[in-house]
């Protein structure tokens, strides 16, 4: 009735997307983008810097380098709060880290990621309400 049946059908699909292997060419392209954008990010400020860090973070995420992705996406939100793909990816990565911490019984990391997820809710509230 509530569509729980769909959940089971979804899970294998999710695993498939996680296991997607990017081609060598794409990988090279992403790495080039990252190194190029990193230099740009150092010179930019405010909204522009946030955008560049978001692109870097999304590229790292595609490469499967989650910790680097989180680092860049956090820098993006620090430079300028926004609710684009960077935000959504960061929340998803936090939640993944939270789930890993819960499985490993790592209370400290668990609390860190729960708190970070709370902060993401605050960011969403503030951006929607137009707080600068």
């Amino acid at each position, binding site marked *: 009735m*509530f569509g729980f049946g769909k959940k089971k059908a*979804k899970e294998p699909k*999710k695993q498939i997307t996680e296991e997607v292997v990017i081609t060598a060419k794409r990988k090279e392209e992403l790495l080039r983008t990252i190194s190029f954008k990193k230099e740009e990010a150092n010179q930019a400020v405010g909204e522009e810097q946030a955008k560049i860090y978001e692109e870097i973070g999304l590229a790292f995420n595609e490469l499967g380098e989650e910790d680097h992705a989180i680092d860049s996406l956090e820098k993006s939100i620090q430079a300028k709060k926004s609710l684009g793909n960077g935000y*959504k990816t960061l929340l998803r990565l936090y*939640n993944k880290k939270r789930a890993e911490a819960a499985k490993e019984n790592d*209370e400290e990391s*668990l609390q860190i990621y729960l708190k970070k997820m709370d902060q993401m809710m605050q960011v969403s509230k503030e951006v*929607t309400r137009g707080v600068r």
Partner: protein
Amino acid sequence: MGVVNFIIENILTQASVTIALIAMLGLILQKKSTGQVISGSLKTMLGFMVLSAGSTIIVGSLTYFGQIFTEGFHMQGIIPSIEAINGQAMNELGLGRDIALTFLAIFVFNIIIARFTRWKYIFLTGQAILWMATMTTVFGYFAGLRGIVLILVGGFIGGVFAVAMPAIAQPFVRKITGMDDIALGHFCTIGYVFEAGVAKLVGEKGEKKKSVEDLKLPAQLEFLQDTYLSLMVVMIPLYIITAAFAGKEFASTLSGDTNYLMFAFIQSIQFVVGVYVLLAGVRLLLGEIVPAFRGIAMRLVPNAKPALDCPVLFPYSPNAVIVGFITTTIGSVIAMFVLPVFGLAMILPGMLTAFFAGGTAGIFGNLTGGRRGAIIGGIVHGFFITLLPALLVTTFNSMGFVNATATDVDTVSAALLYAWLIGPLLKAF
């Protein structure tokens, strides 16, 4: 024996002390250091006392507002504020200890249900659980439940809601976010699903369905930037207009030497001050308990889906939030005028509920019924979330609550469950 009696009669009757002792027990069970146990317990006690102080300020302002409204409009004007209900229940009605214990019981039942059933949702919005605990305790008490039964029944019903609401919303959340890892934990879900249903019925279908996200709308709601500022924007005109209708002669009897309109202005700000203080108390009160419980819940149910507060959906459909806020406000204003015609109290519109509940409902409406669904569904949603709290007013009045009613519709539905089902059943047997 004298010592035991002293403890029972003088210490455990103080709700603030009992609540601090509960927090202390929780902290000791988590093997925290002595320093953390002491500071955590004291902060919890401070939180409760601050909350009570906020409630006293709110009650003072609401009592005044109730008098001028009745004089001015010859009917009861109710301010929807779950904070005011919580404060009065914990403080003036002396249900603080029961609400705190029910709050813990809801967490425990949530963990049990998530651990042993396939509905793996852990509700992470601590404040919403406190509002739910308030409503189940108040209405359980009204239905005649006392002591441990009051707490266990409230904990069970609250725990079921904490799992069922994210579960009901999840098929929609999955479509909105495109993933199944995160759930929605906000006790306005019945309203969201209601709007989704209405939008599906009346909205655009198939290829004709156009999303509000394709429209160009002002990106931000700047007048809502600050919670307290937006409360003031509503309360100041509400109080001043009401005082004007009550008339100088009557209103001056309440305002003493101060000009009656100036007095109304100051009282409207007092209401906001009360909410500010009360919520500061809630933050202190929950600051120690909630992180600990969330940690325990997540470790006991490692494959749980965290149910997060409603802003989790805002990034996926920002235009729908604005449309939802505006249409829900329109629906609430319509209900404000229509409900008294049917003998119900006049429920004044609440800007914050319209924003958070209305905005999120807008996302649901847009999903199932496109632009037309979001607009018509939003207006009906506004009416719906004003109608339900209006049904509680008589009970609140008879229990001695001053001029306020609850807001979040899931907590209102839990209350109606007590009023319409559990209460009559208890009386029958």
